[in-house]
């Protein structure tokens, strides 16, 4: 019988089938939700990595990042002149303005900003949604280690230079030849699954980085090392090829 009765029967069938299925209710405060990898909960700041380059504040579409800093002059024994470096005084993100686009995380050249899945920071007053660098630094502890590449994801250009065409002098983008075929996937299965640190021989030892960045032993003592031993896992997100050491912060 087609008509109203079949519709009624379908309604009963649908509700009965739903009764038999597991519920979709998330018992949130009682059960912590399983969040997707790369969940955008809050932006954490690894203060030690920040060089006050202001790129994040400039790129922020909402202008919700507030940065204050001052220059400190360091008298270096035996150097020709005093060295200067930036000291971060204030780094605050107004999460009532933030639209969680992640541009600041993307543009940060020194891996000082990270996405944390932590989302339980609601406030009763909108003015309290501005969080200072201490709170942002605390959130670094909740930043998960970088997830492994998806199965079948292309190998990063930095790791796999063979897949890149040779750059000819003066060649514009439009004239670039077609990319040659990548080597077959199965050849490097362990890379695609997420290369571990031990398998990257070209990677410099972290410990000697601060020494290269600040050659003077006196400054090395005053400046916090780029990666103190307390740093949580995310720091390995630095690309495997050694980043060029930041230019010395000297005044010309």
């Amino acid at each position, binding site marked *: 019988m087609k008509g109203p009765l079949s519709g009624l029967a379908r309604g009963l069938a649908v509700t009965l089938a739903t*009764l038999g299925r597991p519920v979709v209710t998330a018992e949130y405060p009682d059960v912590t939700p399983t969040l997707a990898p790369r969940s955008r909960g809050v932006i954490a700041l690894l203060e030690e990595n920040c060089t006050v380059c202001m790129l994040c504040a400039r790129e922020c579409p909402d202008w919700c990042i507030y940065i204050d800093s001052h220059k400190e002059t360091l008298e270096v024994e035996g150097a020709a002149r005093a060295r200067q470096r930036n000291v971060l005084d204030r780094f605050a993100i107004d999460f009532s303005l933030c639209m969680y686009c992640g541009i600041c995380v993307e543009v940060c050249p020194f891996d000082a900003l990270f996405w944390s899945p932590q989302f339980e920071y609601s406030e009763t007053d909108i003015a309290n949604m501005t969080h200072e660098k201490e709170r942002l630094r605390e959130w670094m502890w909740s930043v998960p280690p970088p997830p492994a590449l998806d199965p079948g994801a292309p190998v990063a250009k930095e790791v796999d230079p063979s897949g890149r065409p040779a750059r000819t002098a003066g060649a514009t983008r439009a004239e670039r030849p077609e990319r040659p075929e990548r080597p077959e996937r199965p050849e490097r299965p362990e890379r695609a699954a997420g290369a571990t640190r031990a398998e990257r021989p070209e990677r410099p030892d972290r410990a000697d980085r601060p020494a290269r960045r600040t050659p003077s032993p006196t400054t090395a003592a005053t400046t916090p090392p780029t990666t103190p031993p307390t740093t949580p896992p995310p720091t390995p997100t630095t690309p495997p090829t050694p980043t060029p050491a930041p230019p010395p912060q000297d005044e010309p």
Partner: protein
Amino acid sequence: MPEALEVVLRAVAVLAAFLVLPLLVGQTEHKVMAHMQGRLGPMYAGGFHGWAQLVADGVKFAQKEDSVPAAADRTLFRLAPGIALVPYLVAMSAIPLAPGVVAADVDAGLLFVLAASAVAVLGILVGGWASGNKYSLLGGMRTAAQLLAYELPLVLAATSVAMAAGTLRLSGIVEAWQPWWLLWQAPAAVVFLVSAVAELQRPPFDMPIADAELVLGAYTEYGGLRFALFLLAEYAGIVVMSGLFAVLFLGGWSGPFPEALGWLWTLAKTGLVAVLVIWIRVAWPRMREDQLQALAWKVLVPLALAQLVLTAALVVAL
């Protein structure tokens, strides 16, 4: 003296059933409806799966202000929840659970229960009229229209069973009931169930309440304990109608197990019908007012009359 004691005992038993069973149906509705919609329903009150949700609701309702609108007819406004609730208590006392297990084995029990439950609907009409609010009045009028339309098929369907059994006594009907009546009285059962749900103004026949357009109709001006009484009346109505359905069409305490467990059969059948009423509510959308009337007069009444003819023919032939 023992006779007086027995009367008191029976009254207390009915009152206990009257206070417990509607809450049980309400809690079942909470949970079954939630799971039919992929939700969990109440989970906190009472600790275990929110079993005390309705108790908590009752406490909340009791704490609320008892306000009467200025334009309302004060006496009637205060009286209406009682008019809606008490008849179901009276009706419940006449529904038998097992042979002898009935508060009052009335001779014309079927008539008594139907009459009492019809009075209960009047409580809503009174409330709608007394509220002095246009939505309440509209809701009350729709209630009245629905009562007029669905009382007839309800009574006709019940008459069919009474005719088949040859008695108006509810326990007599159960004794005369035989399993093949399930088929014989099936149209009457459908008509009775649909009319009962409409009489209770449960979805899909909740046009008089229609919270989206009439802001709960007759209940608009009610709050606190009086509103809770209306709610209780609705669930008590489900219990009474489900019990009546189980007794009339499902054979009450007839079942495979020993006679002593008969009351359990009646309760189980009542519960099953109550769950069906809840299920219907979840599955189907609300009907329009004209569709409501059309269903009653063009479908249910002719169907009930045809069933009556069939029953009469078989009763005469057998």
